[in-house]
């Protein structure tokens, strides 16, 4: 076991897969010699060579096309989009091409591509760096979407993502990159995609969340406990597909739930989680399932992040509302 930040765990996962499979290629803008704008690919080009880890021209769409083409010739591309706000440039390659490759070829071809990309607020980035756009991906049949919240999850999930034979969007919250260290085994391990993790067990209210909101929810759960409310915190880890069994088992136990996301209310995946709970566990509910989200505006100007991004207080309030319904 080693103590790693999430970004070190991500690098470690890529190193492991570059070593494990010679078809794995890591590429994107500044991921080579520079080691990535966040150092996620630090040292990888030096260790594995320019053939395996390389820079691209500055064009997200071209990077997506490159990944598809390399995938067709037998490689396992791990491409980086420098910030997920830039996904719009490569939306066709992801949503209309990779996501459909297996289907449109009737199972003959596939796109074993992993798309790594940072996102997330709280670090005062300039415009279109921090937006939570995972909801767009959730709405696209044919891709999986993974969002880790701890160094341990980050490594195991990234190894699984790279080994998956279908496209996986792997979103890395910038605020979590270096905010804390966690135990990460040095050897390889995988975490099954599509499996949530109960980060804290509770009996009164389920808090279903992902990304940086996992930590805000854990903080909220501590506060709720002081008021005698026992919150169960479920970290979805993979938001597409959802781990429906874990979600429903928790709601059946607690009878109350809130869904917490950093994205705007009209975005993210909160509405989908609520709908699934309504479909499957309405008879277990003591109260409606409520959502903690950002307001439905464009992502805030940097100095307004603090008043805009949901935090543990919003979660405490909403959990109490549900508890006292």
């Amino acid at each position, binding site marked *: 076991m080693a103590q790693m930040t999430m970004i070190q765990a991500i690098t470690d996962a890529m190193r492991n897969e570059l070593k494990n499979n010679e078809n794995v290629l890591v590429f994107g803008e500044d991921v080579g010699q520079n080691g990535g704008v966040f150092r996620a690919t630090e040292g990888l080009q030096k260790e594995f060579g320019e*053939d395996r880890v390389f820079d*691209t*021209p500055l*064009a997200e*769409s*071209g990077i*997506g*096309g*490159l*990944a*598809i*083409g*390399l*995938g*067709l*010739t*037998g*490689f396992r591309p791990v491409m980086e989009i420098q910030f997920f706000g830039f996904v719009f440039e490569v939306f*066709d*390659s992801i949503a*209309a*091409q990779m996501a459909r490759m*297996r*289907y*449109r*070829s*009737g*199972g*003959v*071809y*596939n796109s074993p591509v992993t798309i790594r990309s940072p996102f997330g607020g709280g670090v005062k980035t300039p415009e279109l760096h921090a937006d939570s756009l995972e909801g767009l991906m959730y709405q696209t*049949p*044919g891709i*999986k979407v993974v969002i880790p919240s701890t160094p341990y999850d980050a490594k195991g999930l990234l190894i699984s993502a790279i080994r*998956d*034979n*279908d496209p996986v969007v792997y979103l890395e919250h910038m605020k979590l990159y270096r905010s804390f260290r966690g135990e990460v085994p040095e050897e390889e391990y995988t975490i099954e995609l*599509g499996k949530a993790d109960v980060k804290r067990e509770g009996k009164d209210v389920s808090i279903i969340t992902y990304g940086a909101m996992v930590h805000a929810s854990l903080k909220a759960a501590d506060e709720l406990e002081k008021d005698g409310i026992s919150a169960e915190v479920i970290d979805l880890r993979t938001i*597409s*597909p*959802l*781990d*429906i*069994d874990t979600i429903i088992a928790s709601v059946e136990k607690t009878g109350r739930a809130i869904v917490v996301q950093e994205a705007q209310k009209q975005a993210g995946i909160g509405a989908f989680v609520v709908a699934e709970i309504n479909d499957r566990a309405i008879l277990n509910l003591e109260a409606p399932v409520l959502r903690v989200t950002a307001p439905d505006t464009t992502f805030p100007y940097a100095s307004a992040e603090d008043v805009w991004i949901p935090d543990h207080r919003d979660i405490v309030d909403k959990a109490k509302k549900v508890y006292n319904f």
Partner: protein
Amino acid sequence: MTKTIDAVQDQFETFQILSEDGEIVNESAMPKLSDEQLQELMRRMVYTRIWDQRAISLNRQGRLGFYAPVAGQEASMLGSHFALDKEDWILPGYRDIPQIVFHGFPLYQAFLWSRGHFQGGQIPEGVNVLMPQIIIGAQIIQAAGVGFGLKKQGKKNVCITYTGDGGASQGDFYEGLNFAGAYAANAIFVVQNNRFAISVPVEKQSAAKTIAQKAVAAGIEGIQVDGMDVLAVYAATQQARERAIAGEGPTLIETLTYRYGPHTMAGDDPTRYRTKDLDSEWEKKDPLVRFRKFLEKKNLWSEEQENKVVEEAKEDIKASIKKADGAPKQKVTDLINFMFEELPYNLREQLEQYTAKESK
């Protein structure tokens, strides 16, 4: 400024080997093709012309779905394809069905693709083609990736891809050329300039006088070819292929061509935007007429041979349509099963629901 533009354009003169009368006008560029190969080229062009006529008619009868006519572009499509090796990759646009069929994709599957059936996407093992691309430009960036992959694997093979004159305005067109150039990928980009993107003439796409000169922006080789001249198209593609597999990088080939029919069979009426004069001007340049004249002079082609091809094409088409008719009806469960290697919970549930529904 004008001088600079002129100087650029002067480098992209139209490459031609065969005149409209079927005379060799550029002997030194004449590709080395055997008599049999020349006849095979003609056979394929005639076959494709008949197939186009039949496809239009089958579409009107409702026996085919989406269809983008190809008459007029036979030299551009088949001349370029003829320069390829079996192991080369083709990333076609939606009009480029002849190339993938002559690369090994069965005709009945091309008909199923037209109708919208999953078997129309199931490329047989060992046939290195993708399904026709509907998103104009996407095939260009993907070709850069396939070409780079082939280069990485040290293969003496190329990836060829096709788009139209309108497609050269897309961002993905520039990105694909530029990526392939930056990586010296084994790629050939063919722009089939038939002068119209649906109703929009090429002059409204760009102020550039040639599309071939757009290669300059990527720092790669570009050539403009008489796309009604099958020998010139073949020669240009063959040279581009040799350069690519020698590690010298990609080439952009612009073929000047024309489609005699509508843009697609989905209600497009070319009389709304094309004059009769323009149509007849290009009909004089018919790639079949000119190559037929050339072969006849060499005693390599006769009416009898042509009729044989026509009959063979009609028979094949009939048999292929029949085979397509025999394809199983698609079920929702089929579609679900093609989504992932391993189905997620939502699709597992829906698979169960539709399995029950289908067994009723």
